[in-house]
């Protein structure tokens, strides 16, 4: 167990694997950088084969960097805060008071699970300050952290921290005990568990299936080129096919396609199982937790009050299955660019439920938004959505067709050269005219998808193209609001409303200008009369 958490200590040596992974990830973050590196390396090796030795040296260097990072990573857990010191050349030290910790996320890889270790991430508020991550620590330490953070939060409430100046002390005490229970985990309520059927549905609805098909197509092309190597197999297959005539040939190709399809399906479903196996969502006091994964257990913890926005999306296939995908976006989901360094990147966890029915989605909405969310829907199919103005269609049509014409012009100019500029111009104009009907169709579809619902407390905005997505939020969580008008919108009395939240932006395009201003004033009223948004 833990000897003395307040003393400076290192994590388990297995954290070296984590740090090596992080270094590689850091390299791979810039794809262009990686490409240039490998390109340069390939050229150099062709020039001088001895440079081949650089590769093991590089690997050794990365491992050494991992070991050094592990060696210099120390942390201490005090009564009310956690201190983390890290860095080999550039030393950083992080002092994180537990009061500022929003959530404790725990991830266990396969190795972690065999060794009884966990990787703990501490989420902080959306201001984008440094966030802490403890790789490969004892599982008991995660529990200790949870307990400390829980007591800290509750002590703050017990001190009689008011709520908009309207709550009596009794409420605070009540809440403190609730928080205590919530963070320590005495009361659990299971909200949702994914069934095997749901996981298969997720796999089937995966967009990567198209990519996979393209990949196999490319692979097939590759085989045609690399025929020499495969000649015997291909020849025997060809001989068999030729012998059997047309029917056999058809069967052969159909079989090939079916096999490839089966392999793709197995891959996507396998990936879904790997990621979402045993997905459970439960409520513990004021937090929502999810845990999933076959090999790597991933646990996401989000405080309900920190959730800024609920996004429910549905792709075409998921619509066929009658399932939705829900994301609860907490405040820290969008960290400002200047604060995003290697330590903080990718930490703010979005709680995602990959497949759920409409009732469950509404249930989660009720839990997160409470009574303020009454009348607000999160379902794309619900009837209450008001349409946006149809002037949206010609504007989008024009935009899409112009962009396609511009791209066409650039490509044509690159191919035929500038000598035949007149011909290019004529071709582009024809291309532009031809692109108008499909662009109009796309625009109509997008217009058809757009819609919004508002109540006195919140707004739900629907959008999408083939799939559908609804972003819903409470007015009091808004950070700033803007109303924009293009020249055409001004003439038609329309406007576009932008609501900036701590997790991103919600845009309601082409609504009545008066309505936009009214919504803006309503949002401002709610924001300015409420201090709670976290």
């Amino acid at each position, binding site marked *: 167990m833990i000897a003395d958490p307040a003393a400076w200590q290192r994590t388990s040596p297995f954290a070296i694997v984590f740090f090596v992974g992080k270094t590689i990830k850091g390299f791979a973050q810039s794809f262009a950088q990686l490409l240039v590196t490998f390109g340069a390396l390939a050229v150099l090796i062709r020039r001088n084969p001895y440079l081949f030795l650089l590769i093991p040296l590089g690997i050794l260097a990365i491992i050494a960097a991992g070991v050094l990072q592990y060696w210099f990573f120390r942390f201490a857990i005090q009564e009310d805060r956690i201190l983390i010191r890290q860095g080999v050349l550039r030393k950083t030290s992080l002092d994180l008071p537990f009061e500022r910790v929003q959530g404790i996320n725990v991830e266990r890889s396969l190795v972690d699970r065999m060794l009884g270790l966990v990787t703990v991430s501490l989420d902080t508020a959306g201001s984008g300050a440094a966030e802490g991550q403890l790789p490969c620590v004892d599982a008991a330490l995660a529990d200790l952290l949870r307990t400390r953070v829980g007591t800290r939060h509750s002590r703050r409430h017990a001190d009689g921290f008011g*709520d908009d100046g309207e709550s009596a002390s009794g*409420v605070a005490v009540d809440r403190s005990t609730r928080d205590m229970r919530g963070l320590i985990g005495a009361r659990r309520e299971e909200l949702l568990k994914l069934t095997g059927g749901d996981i298969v549905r997720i796999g089937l609805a995966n967009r990567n299936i198209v990519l996979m098909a393209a990949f196999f197509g490319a692979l097939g092309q590759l085989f045609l080129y690399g025929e020499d190597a495969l000649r015997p197999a291909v020849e025997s297959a060809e001989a068999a096919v030729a012998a059997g005539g047309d029917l056999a040939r058809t069967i052969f190709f159909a079989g090939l396609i079916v096999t490839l399809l089966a392999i793709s399906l197995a891959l996507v479903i396998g990936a879904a199982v790997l990621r979402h196996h045993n997905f459970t969502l439960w409520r513990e006091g004021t937090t929502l937790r999810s845990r999933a994964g076959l090999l790597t257990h991933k646990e996401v913890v989000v405080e*309900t009050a920190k959730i800024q926005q609920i996004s429910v999306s549905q792709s075409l296939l998921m619509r066929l299955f009658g399932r939705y995908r829900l994301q609860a976006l907490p405040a820290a989901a969008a960290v*400002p660019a200047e604060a995003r360094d290697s330590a903080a990147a990718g930490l703010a966890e979005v709680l995602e439920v990959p497949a759920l029915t409409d009732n469950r989605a509404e249930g989660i909405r009720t839990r997160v938004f409470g009574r303020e969310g009454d009348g607000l829907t999160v379902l794309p199919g619900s009837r209450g959505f008001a349409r946006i103005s149809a002037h949206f269609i010609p504007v989008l049509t024009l935009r899409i067709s112009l962009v396609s014409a511009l791209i066409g012009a650039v490509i044509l100019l690159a191919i035929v050269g500038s000598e035949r500029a007149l011909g290019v111009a004529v071709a582009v104009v024809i291309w532009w005219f031809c692109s108008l009907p499909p662009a109009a169709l796309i625009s109509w579809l997008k217009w058809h998808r757009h819609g919004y619902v508002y109540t006195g407390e919140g707004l739900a905005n629907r959008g999408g193209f083939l799939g559908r997505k609804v972003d819903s939020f409470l007015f009091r969580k808004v950070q700033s609001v*803007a109303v*924009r008008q293009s020249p055409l919108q001004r003439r038609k009395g329309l406007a576009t409303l932008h609501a*900036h939240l701590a997790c991103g932006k919600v845009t309601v395009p082409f609504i009545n200008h008066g309505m936009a201003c009214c919504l803006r004033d309503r949002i401002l009223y709610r924001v300015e009369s409420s*201090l709670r948004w*976290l």
Partner: protein
Amino acid sequence: MTGSPGIPDCTKTGTPVPGPFANPEIRPDSLPRAATVAWQPLHPRYAKRLQAGALIRIGVLAAVVAAAHVTVLIAGFETLSRIAVWPLRILWALCVLGAVWAVVKPVIVVPRCGYAVREKDILYRSGVLWQSVRVVPFNRVQHTKTDSRLLDRRFGLANLTVFPAGAGSQKIPGLGTETAENLLAHVSERIEAEKPQTADDSC
């Protein structure tokens, strides 16, 4: 405003609201309107500062083009100078157009920008064709800063930026140095006064 419909417990939908609680109905037309504020213009020198900045950039571009032109002329390659004629002409034309635009644009744009400070929020409007009005409530502002670059200081100007949580910060450029400092002090004071309670005080 007293109408905050505090719902202390949004996880238990059925529980009654504890404590004294008021939630008067608000008629939509009685809400304070953001459309009818008195806009403060940006500093008159801001247009000149934008012109100067743009002209300097155009000057650098023109210098590069001139250097290229001279190189082509001196090198005297027959084919190169023949090929380079049109690109050079286009670049020179771009320089001239850019210079004209650099002078004209600020004159059009700056008078149409403006800001307004209300008790609880700060507004900024901008745009000539695509007009936009953005409102940032003080009780959502995390921090604020003023900055002035070399050119700004030359014209006695400064920029004020307010940062709400998330990615969308709002910059109000082209303020007089003194105005910017006063605004910074005022905004900081308002932020302090309207400070939101963080974490867990709500449900």
